[in-house]
């Protein structure tokens, strides 16, 4: 089955994206994780995203484009990136999610992908 792992980051962890004393440790942890995942051959796709301060949200209402500065939902944790992986079942997906660097302070949402039409 294919699952999307959606990685949720916090304000503090997004702050580490800029160069500061914490960023080396932050990126180091992600580098190890991404390399492990790629080496296991399960990755079907994925990207990291720039922080929610760069987000723009659009809704069409009454035929009008409503464009807004900011992410879709104003929550404490925000989407920071995702992988699409191919594994047997949710337990394997959960095991990969548990290793994500953001799991201890943010979280990971696991979603099966829609089967091919």
């Amino acid at each position, binding site marked *: *089955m294919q*699952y999307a792992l959606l990685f949720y980051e916090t304000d503090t962890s997004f702050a580490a994206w800029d160069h500061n004393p914490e960023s080396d440790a932050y990126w180091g942890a992600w580098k190890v994780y991404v390399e492990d995942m790629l080496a296991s051959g399960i990755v079907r796709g994925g990207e990291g995203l720039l922080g929610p301060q760069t987000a723009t949200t659009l809704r069409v209402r009454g035929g009008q484009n409503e464009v807004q500065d900011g992410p879709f939902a104003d929550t404490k944790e925000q989407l920071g990136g995702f992988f699409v992986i191919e594994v*047997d*079942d*949710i*337990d*394997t*997906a*959960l095991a990969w999610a548990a290793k994500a660097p953001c799991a201890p302070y943010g979280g990971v949402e*696991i979603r*099966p992908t829609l*089967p091919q*039409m």
Partner: protein
Amino acid sequence: MATGRVEQAVRESYGRLVAILSSRDRDIGTAEDALADAIVAALEQWPEQGIPERPEAWLLAVARRRLVDRSRRAATDAALSRSLALLTEFVGEVDLAAPRFPDERLKLLFVCAHPAIDPTVHAALMLQSVLGLSAARIAAAFVVSPDAMGRRLTRAKVKIRDAGIGFELPDPRELAGRLGPVLDAIYTAYGSGWDGLADDSQRHDLTTEAIWLARTLNELMPAQPEALGLLALMLHLEARKAARRAPDGAYVPLSEQDTGLWSPALLAEAEATLRRAATFRKAGRYQLEAAIQSAHVGRRLTGQPDRATIAALYDGLFHHAPGLGVAVGRAAAKAEADGAEAGLRLLAAIDAERVADYQPYWAVRAELLARSEVADGQGDAILAYDRAIALAEDPAVRRHLAERRARLLS
């Protein structure tokens, strides 16, 4: 031929067949539908043609044909399409001529109590998919509407299918963590319908079903001390069921129960099960709860429960499972062993915000204050009784507390 015999044959095999039929596609709902069709066919054909030599193989063969028919139809629906090749392979998986089918119910129990499934539906899922109980019957036990229960069950089954919850036994390293929710769900099934209904004839409890699930679990997983502990606990509670109510329906507290009404057979089985659990020398919440019940039973022989042992067991239980119910039970046990004041001190240590609406806290507090020598104890006891009575859902418990309160005033 009586429908009863057909029903019994079906009940024995239901969970086994659902587990086999749903394991490949993880689709419990569709497996149950196919099995339901097979059961309807059995009810039509068996009374005339006689029960087949191997009823389970018969049901499995018919249900599988239905599954294949269904997915052929579904295959026209692109979004639901599944490969027919896979299905053909699946149909060949279990040998219908084999003397016994593999028992996959254990996997089904773990699927029902998977952490990715809402814990409030674990028990209902087990009762339905392993025992074949209807949503209406389960809804009555959990005091919710049949529609709401049906929706919850359907949602959970769709999640199992679509989220890809594997029909596999947990990895040994994860077993301890995964077994807990299975045990909790079985105990939840046992507790359903126990309280909140006044009239025993209206009770829709599922205690027998829960014990059956625990027996099945222990059969399939024989060396788990906590699973044995849970079975022992439920057998103890079940043994005293007849003594919990007076003939007029009034609530009878444990200390005043007629020990002659306790079931000796169930008590003996409970004790033997707990002894087996203890041989593993690995204590846990359910074993300690069963041990507390066991210590209460000592009264049958000596006339007096072993109060010091019960208080010590509660200390151990609180260490393993520091929930509100255990904290209050521990205070009550401490009071029995070392006096009301000692119990009140433990009650005072519980966070006041958490107990504001917790009925057992107020009932125990009232009882201990009434017995204590503390200043204003009697006045505070009356206030605590008022609160316990207001919070009690069971009219028999309310009557019991009102009598205790009235005794203080006379």
